[in-house]
């Protein structure tokens, strides 16, 4: 069942420096699937597509192409665990393939670092790599199925849209990620607005929390025990965000959030205690109890 796939791990900033427990679960769970993650030096922030791209497209593109060039030098595809990294690097690679004005400027700047990006190596989101491995491959690695756990899947906008560039799934009726959750033995609950934004990138804090809170309310209405995401920014909005929702909006949802790789690791038999889940701001115990942990 070993897949023998090798990727350069592009960690980004938020996972290693804010949510290392997601990094740990990803390393363990992907390793168990036969995926080899090679660490590499020389990467910077992707940079994130919410603020930096708005601050200046050309410098955003230059930093992104530099990362792609560094990745390409390692001679294999890059794997990301974050929708922001995925969106930025995928869009930059797409723009490089179209070779517009701004790309020429950015490529010129890279020359002074003796770097170039030809498009030979690409960026893979962990969800898409898992899709390749397939439901059978994943369930083959599961030792303790998450039976009885009802999961609300939040894809995150930048994994899905623009679909012609991201190419992961249908932008309004996606189902791939839900299939990946089901392959762990869990039950997926569809909820109203399941492809809506988490709201993290809105400038106004209260509005941002309102958008996130509405989404969590819809998940709870559908009977969810927890949320599954594939992005640390969405994770932050749904985890730390709930603390802020309680403080500023006076709503106390208490719906635990997980990165998909954390659920995968638990299903593969990792002891939740060893995964650093106690660092989540919303207690994950009520979800773990459902699966007898």
């Amino acid at each position, binding site marked *: 069942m070993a897949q023998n796939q090798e990727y350069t791990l592009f960690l980004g900033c938020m996972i*290693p420096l804010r949510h*290392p427990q997601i990094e740990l679960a990803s390393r363990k769970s992907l390793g168990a699937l036969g995926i080899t993650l090679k*660490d590499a030096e020389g990467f910077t922030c992707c940079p*994130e597509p919410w603020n930096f791209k708005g601050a*200046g497209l050309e410098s955003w593109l230059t930093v992104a192409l530099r990362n792609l060039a560094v990745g390409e030098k390692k001679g294999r595809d890059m794997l990301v665990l974050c929708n922001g990294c995925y969106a930025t690097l995928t869009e930059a690679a797409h723009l490089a393939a179209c070779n517009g004005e701004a790309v020429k400027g950015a490529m010129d700047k890279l020359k002074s*670092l003796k770097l170039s990006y030809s498009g030979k190596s690409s960026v893979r989101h962990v969800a898409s790599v898992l899709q390749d491995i397939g439901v059978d491959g994943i369930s083959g690695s599961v030792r303790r199925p998450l039976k009885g756990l009802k999961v609300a899947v939040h894809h995150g906008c*930048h994994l899905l849209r623009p679909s012609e560039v991201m190419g992961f799934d249908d932008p309004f009726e996606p189902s791939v990620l839900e299939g990946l959750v089901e392959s762990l033995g869990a039950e997926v609950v569809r909820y109203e607005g399941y492809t809506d*934004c988490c709201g993290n990138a809105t400038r*106004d804090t209260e509005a941002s929390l309102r958008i996130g809170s509405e989404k969590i309310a819809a998940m709870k209405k559908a009977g969810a025990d927890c949320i599954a995401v594939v992005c640390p920014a969405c994770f932050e909005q749904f985890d730390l965000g709930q603390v802020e929702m309680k403080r500023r909006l006076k709503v106390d949802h208490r719906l635990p959030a997980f990165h998909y790789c954390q659920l995968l690791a638990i299903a593969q038999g990792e002891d939740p205690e060893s995964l650093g889940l106690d660092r989540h701001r919303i207690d994950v115990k009520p979800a773990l109890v459902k699966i007898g942990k």
Partner: protein
Amino acid sequence: MLKADPGFKKTLSPVEGAGKLSYCYQCSACVAECPAAHNFNDFNPREIVLASLIGVADYLTAKDSVIWQCTTCYKCYERCPQGTHPVEVINALKNISCAAGNGPEEVTSSRDNVLANGSLISPSEAIEKRRQELGLDKAPVAPAGELKKILE
């Protein structure tokens, strides 16, 4: 009095597909699912495209403009039947706003932070301790100087 500037639309960067706003026929398909429009009365992607098209967009590139409420969810991009890409028009307006020194402080300082340190988040002793507890190696250190060299 508002003065129209039909040349304004040409200043929007065509790179990310923001240059197709002339195709907009004001159908509002971009508005229905826009989370920013739901939360802010003065945010409307159709109007933002129209204002950019006619060239009466100064209020959109001014300080504390409503454009920064866009969540970049890309629903408008997918829903627009004309390939107008409202979100990229908004991104282009954000670029103009920042170039004029009108960008929100948190946005420009986060960019400056990445350019200076190579990372959005600064490493800390606390996080290194947590990584160690989890059995993870030290966090990778971004090569800070390189970005400065090419972008300043």
